[in-house]
């Protein structure tokens, strides 16, 4: 369960003040995926960072059942160490999340296999291509089998096959009762996965709209209208 209540956060002061979140509230039950669509600078990343506990909101509260241990985080960068191999990276992050030492090797193998990067396990992350690094970043976020996944533009850098593979994986996780929050400016990428939709615009406005029976195309049109009217 993920809960946000009255979140408010702004950056800067005086005339340069930018409100990123303005009274944002929602609850997301297990098995639900919230797709947050918005243009660059709308405050999507700020929302995810507040949910992850990286930013303390100026007002309101955010909570994730299970706390930080239950969160899988995919940010703009991979959070991986370039001079360590992929396997060493995953073992390090597994240790931080208290994955038992005996289980972490098997867990690392499983996520690498699932993301199609097993053959790169003993390669330094710094020598991988951008797409492979993005897959490695996703493997890192899944290493502790988190209950809640916060994904900031997770499709960035992925080729078509890898993006389809990730969509399938996220669909499986949702089916397994995981809670997902996905922030993206690309409606087409996120809409298929979403059970709940939010549009975020500059000024911190956020509107929740249950996906219901609307088609991805209808939702995409609605989003574009909302952005265009800004």
């Amino acid at each position, binding site marked *: 369960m993920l809960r946000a209540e009255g979140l408010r956060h702004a950056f800067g002061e005086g005339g340069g003040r930018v409100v990123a979140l303005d009274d944002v509230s929602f609850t997301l039950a297990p098995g639900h995926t919230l797709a947050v669509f918005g243009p660059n600078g709308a405050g999507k990343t700020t929302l995810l960072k507040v949910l992850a506990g990286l930013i303390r909101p100026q007002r309101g509260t955010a909570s994730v059942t299970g706390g*930080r*241990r239950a969160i899988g985080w995919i940010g703009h960068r991979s*959070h991986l*160490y370039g001079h*360590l191999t992929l396997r060493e990276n995953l073992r390090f992050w597994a240790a*931080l*999340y208290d994955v038992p030492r005996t289980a972490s090797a098997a867990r690392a193998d499983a996520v690498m296999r699932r993301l199609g990067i097993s053959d790169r396990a003993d390669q330094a992350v710094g020598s991988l291509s951008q797409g492979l690094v993005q897959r490695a970043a996703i493997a890192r976020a899944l290493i502790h089998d988190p209950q809640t996944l916060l994904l900031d533009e997770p499709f960035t850098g992925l080729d078509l096959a890898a993006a389809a593979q990730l969509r399938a994986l996220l669909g499986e996780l949702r089916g397994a009762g995981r809670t997902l929050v996905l922030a993206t400016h690309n409606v087409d990428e996120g809409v298929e996965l979403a059970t709940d939709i939010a549009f975020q615009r500059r000024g911190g406005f956020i509107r929740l709209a249950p996906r219901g029976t609307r088609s991805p195309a209808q939702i995409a049109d609605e989003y574009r209208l909302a952005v265009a009217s800004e």
Partner: protein
Amino acid sequence: MSDLLRRAWTVARKDLMLEFRTRTALLSAVVFTALVLTVFNFGRDPTAVAPLDLAPSILWVTFTFAAMVALNRAFQLELENQALEGLLVSPLSRYSLYWGKLVANLVFVAVVEAVGLPLFVLFFDVPVGRVVLPLCGVIALATLGFVTVGTLFSAMVIRTRFAELMLPVLLLPFLIPPLVLAVLATAKLLSARPLSDSAGYLKLLAAYDIVFLVAATFLFRFTVDE
């Protein structure tokens, strides 16, 4: 407590693995130490000033600046691919993160000092035979003080522009007390004075270490949290 230490060791082990794999900062610090000692060795007139009068100051100035190299790189490792952000989202406590960095920095500086000390003895021909253990004790206490404060400041400056310049500017004033105490204690030891003559300095060094270790442990989270 055991969880805190276990996670701290996980961070320290990762930092050391990264350092000994790349060896960039370590080699730079070792070469820097050797060069500074060489320059001081040839840049003095041994007929005007006795080596023993200069040696303690030279030793500690060298170790202080070599430690800066270690402290500068401590959090730069975490800027690569914004790994720090991942650490802050994880269940790793800020205490564990600080202690992990502290342990890694201590090992790094200890390696540099282990190379620097024999060179110092060689260049300055100082009689360390009988005082090697107490001297190692002084080095350990002063290094703990340097690195305790330095680790905190390196986290503080890492998101600033010109972090490598900011660190010495902010840190050096805080290093003056342990530096002075270490120089005085080293001078007494190298002059073959009884250990009891240095006891006061060692107690003050230990007090500095404890005060700043506690303070830095609790203040660290304010340097990394937004």
